[in-house]
């Protein structure tokens, strides 16, 4: 066992200060230490994108990053979006367009989509598909996810969220 390291990180707006093992994955830190189980592991080797969170403003696979690497930074997870009673427009679009089935890839898909909407023009579906191509979904065939992201982008941009 290795010694622990002291980290300070802002997760979903809350400052967190704690000791972690240097080898602990960011995803495990979120799921186990902070009990933020919305972030899921699908492959633990950086291919499926299910564990995607936003670190310092960029979508990041939390299975390919150690918690200590987030020291001094900010992390946004699916829990930072809307609530059950007031879904975020992106979540609302996913619901309206049936862009999720089992829901396992969904948190990672939402965080990737949020990052895309913030940064990319998403002028057409091909751009959306390209942006989502690092997130695997086994249930939906992607069609409704593409539609949901397209529609959410319009709403979010119109309301400057």
């Amino acid at each position, binding site marked *: 066992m290795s010694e622990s390291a002291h980290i300070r990180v802002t997760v979903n707006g809350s400052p967190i200060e704690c000791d972690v093992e240097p080898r602990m994955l960011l995803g495990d830190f979120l799921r186990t230490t902070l009990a933020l189980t919305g972030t899921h592991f699908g492959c*633990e080797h950086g291919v499926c994108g299910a564990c995607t969170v936003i670190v310092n403003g960029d979508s990041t696979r939390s299975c390919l990053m150690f918690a200590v690497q987030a020291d001094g930074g900010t992390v946004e997870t699916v829990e930072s979006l809307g609530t059950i009673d007031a879904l975020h427009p992106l979540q609302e679009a996913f619901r309206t367009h049936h862009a999720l089935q089992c829901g396992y890839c969904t948190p990672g898909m939402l965080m990737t989509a949020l990052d895309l909407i913030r940064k990319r023009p998403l002028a057409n579906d091909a751009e959306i598909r390209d942006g989502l191509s690092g997130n695997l979904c086994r249930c*939906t065939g992607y069609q409704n996810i593409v539609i949901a992201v397209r529609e959410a982008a319009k709403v979010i941009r119109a309301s400057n969220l």
Partner: protein
Amino acid sequence: MLETTRPKLVGASVKRVEDPRLLTGQGAYTDDFRPNGMLHVGLVRSVHPFARIVHINTAEAKRMPGVIGIFTAADIDGAAKPILATSKMKEYRAVPLPILAKDTVHHVGEAVVAVVATSRYLAEDALRKVEIDYEPLAACTDPEEATRPSAPLVHPSLGSNIALAREFVRGDVPAAMAAAQVRVKGRFRFFRKAALALESRSYLAEFNGGRRELTLHTSTQVPGIVRESLAELLDLPGNSVRVIAPDVGGGFGAKTSVYPEEILVCVLARRLGKPVKYTSDRLEDLSSTSQAFDEVIDAELGVAADGTLLALSADVTGDVGAYSVYPWTAAIEPVQVVSFLPGPYRLANYLGKVRGVITPKVPLGPYRGVGRPVSTFVMERLIDMAAVKLGIDPVAMRLKNLVREDEFPYKVASGIVWDRSAFIECLDAACQKADYAALRTMQHAARAAGRWIGIGIASYAELTGIGSKIPAAPGMPVNTGTETATIRIDATGAVTAIFGVASHGQGLETTLAQIVADDLGVRMEDIRIIQGDTAGRAYVTGTYASRSTVLAGGAAKLAAGAVREKVMLAASHLMEAAVEDLDASNGIIFVRGTDRRMTFKELARKVYVEFSRLPKELQQELEATRLYDPVVGTTSSASHIAMVEVDPISYQVHVLRYVVAEDCGRVVNPMIVEGQVHGGVAQGIGAALLEEVVYSEDGQLMTGSLMDYVLPSATGIPMMDVLHVEAESPSTLGGFRGMGEGGTIGAPAAIANAVSDALSPLGIEINELPATPERIFRLVEQASKQKR
């Protein structure tokens, strides 16, 4: 308006009840549960395909930090019976599936040693210190070679590597073949595939010693089947075992079998008196979760000059892997290829033979579509080959042979009976939606410009919502044909509807609520659907084989009807009106044509709280339990049309257009049905073009990560058009038909036909799937060599 009316919910694209929790990260999958004191299991898995275990040294591993215990087969000997999948099939052999390998390992990935530690990290540290000496044994990994008398036996006690064999005969195939003007044949092959749910398997067992009570949270599709198994294998009464399938991250058939790790965590939790969890990583998933397909099919079709199908013969060899999965057995996939091969067509003469051969690989199990993705691929290829030879358009060829309206119910050569379903209407609808004639015009223009563009069609039928009369898997001795619903209105007027199904993405909490709401006359939000939990249930199984809407929907209708009857009797007394004048909708009971009304809440209070004021015959709970059995089940059918282009440089196949017209009977929620079709087609496209589990000749697994086992991503799946041809099933309550698997059944065949059509100028036939760029490249190379 006095009367409270609202549009029917069945048939409406109601937003899903499940979504808010899943979208906000508040879903609860098995790995999300962390009870106090929980321990983690890490498994040392075999690196050999077939080897004798000579010695296991755990001394160093035991000294590792956080290690609570290390267990081999010997250490848990007698704690649980092994899993044994029996069958009523005559020619069938199965060996017990051990919890941990004892003496011999039979595939790469088989669990040998369990390490229990205080965290998953520490368990994984320690399992690397376990030393196992193996003596590798010779084995055949090729199923055809494995049937030869000289082949070494994977399980010597069976006396053969042939796990099962069966034959279907109808009519006189040799005579009909001889009379056929045109005969087409081929050797078809569909390589091995993984179901690959994004949530890998995860199990959490808790044993309360004081109460002698076992609770298992499991990422299963079949909590009921798991409970029966646990009770049997651990020798516990059913009332002491509760199995919960919480939110489950996809299954696609691979989570319908009882797994050794499911039993193992229960054994360890009982032994250690602490909650014990196992969560597999992706490598473990790819080397231990049941796999699909892996069949070679020699098939021949005889056709008359006018295109009438005369005779079909097929010889199927399936590589079923090392063990027979419970309860489905190793027969489920290969036998269903032969059962369903004649498809939705009129065909008098059929000879189908099948063998399932044991090899040292991961066991084969049910996968979305079971047998039918392969049978449809073969049959639809043969039909296209015959159409080309006869110069008949593939659509006309199918229209000529599809079972017609006046011929239902139609008994297929293998014994399956199709009830009335919209076979021809689906093909017509798909052609119309795709504008088939225009697609052909486009293709001609593109071909003239040198592009490899093709159009593929696939029509199929499947049996869904299977009842108690026939097993969901051939010869399986477990009843999968009944479903029980309990519907209860409690003292607050809220409705609870309890089922044995186990949703893992299908949205059953929504669709079953739609059915209950309509039949009871309450609002969606008044209903809580409980499923995926065996607590208090006499006999339940789960969700698989496109059964849940048909069986749970039917049970819901029966139980809701019975509860409504009780509600109306009570209301009749309380509202002083005849039952015939009463109606209910939106949570309100009303006397038709008057303003007299009462909410379910008010009525429930009067029934339960003001109980003594009711006449004796009305002093009863507003609850009913009803069992539904659709006996033989019903037929679902569809036609798929795909247009593809093969890239002449990368040999990648791009799907340009995709249309599905399907008949799943009365549609409960069109949005959800379309989603199921989209996802099914995407998996079918993956199966047709990308996904392949590869074993080396000596049995090593070559595809142990998602870099090697390639799933379709957002850039590889097109937008699809999905049409519902709603022919209500004559055989089921509510007219529902099952539809969870269809997309995956039709897509590989449609893609294979489209790619064959695209490459037909080169004389290339796609008879092996997946048609990866490498395979297409080789076919093109071969074709151009032959030309030269």
